[in-house]
């Protein structure tokens, strides 16, 4: 009955690119992160960042078509790494896409603030993308709270 007690954990979630799954993805990542004993603010931060990345996969990556969105999360000590990936349209100019207020879909009432929100609420943000192959958004955050637990 030896249980691995080191603080490493991993999960990977795949789901259909339906907008009703945006809230599902948030719940899953929040439930996974709960083992880091997050503050309400930290939980709000990662839910918001995940929501932005998943929404982008659905509306920009797949442009409302059917596809799979993949969310991976890894906990290593008090760090949470999140990867959100789609196999859709891809981004031609990543630098331009990441500028605050830039959106390719103003007609859909997008604010162009998605990447800015992810950058602000997470400690690290990295975007990889290839046109017609897909987009991978990597984010991480160090949780201050874990030390309170010991």
């Amino acid at each position, binding site marked *: 009955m030896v249980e691995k007690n080191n603080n490493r954990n991993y999960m990977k979630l795949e789901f259909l690119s339906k907008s009703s799954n945006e809230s599902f993805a948030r719940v899953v990542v929040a439930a996974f992160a709960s083992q880091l004993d997050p503050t309400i603010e930290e939980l709000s931060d990662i839910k*918001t960042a995940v929501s932005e990345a998943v929404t982008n996969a659905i509306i920009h990556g797949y442009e409302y078509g059917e596809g799979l969105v993949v969310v991976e999360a890894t906990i290593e000590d008090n760090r949470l790494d999140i990867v959100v990936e789609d196999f859709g349209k891809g981004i031609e100019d990543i630098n331009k896409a990441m500028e605050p207020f830039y959106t390719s879909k103003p007609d859909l009432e997008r604010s162009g603030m998605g990447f800015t929100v992810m950058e602000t609420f997470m400690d690290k943000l990295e975007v990889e993308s290839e046109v017609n192959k897909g987009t991978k958004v990597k984010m991480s955050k160090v949780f201050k709270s874990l030390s309170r637990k010991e």
Partner: protein
Amino acid sequence: MQLTTEIRKDYMIVKLKGELDHHTSEEARKKIDKQYFNNNLLNIILDLRELNFMDSSGVGLIMGRYKNCMNRNGKISIVSTNPYINRILKMSGLLKLVKIYDTIEEAIRG
């Protein structure tokens, strides 16, 4: 997400409850615009006090309603007390265009 509206003078008061993301903001947009245009209203007050989640799709929703109000020479105001929601509103630059109040009464007084 739940949405209820109430009309007081020429103010349309829209109360949003729950989570405002891309999925729910599309529903909210349709409901708000239908009421606003069908009843020929002028001003909108968005009551966000019972929202427990909002991402940048909510910012887009507010921007869109701001434009509609501007086109009619109306005015839009926000009632919000949740610090996480206020943080996103601030980050988005929306507060340069729209004022936040603590209560509906204050929003009406302006």
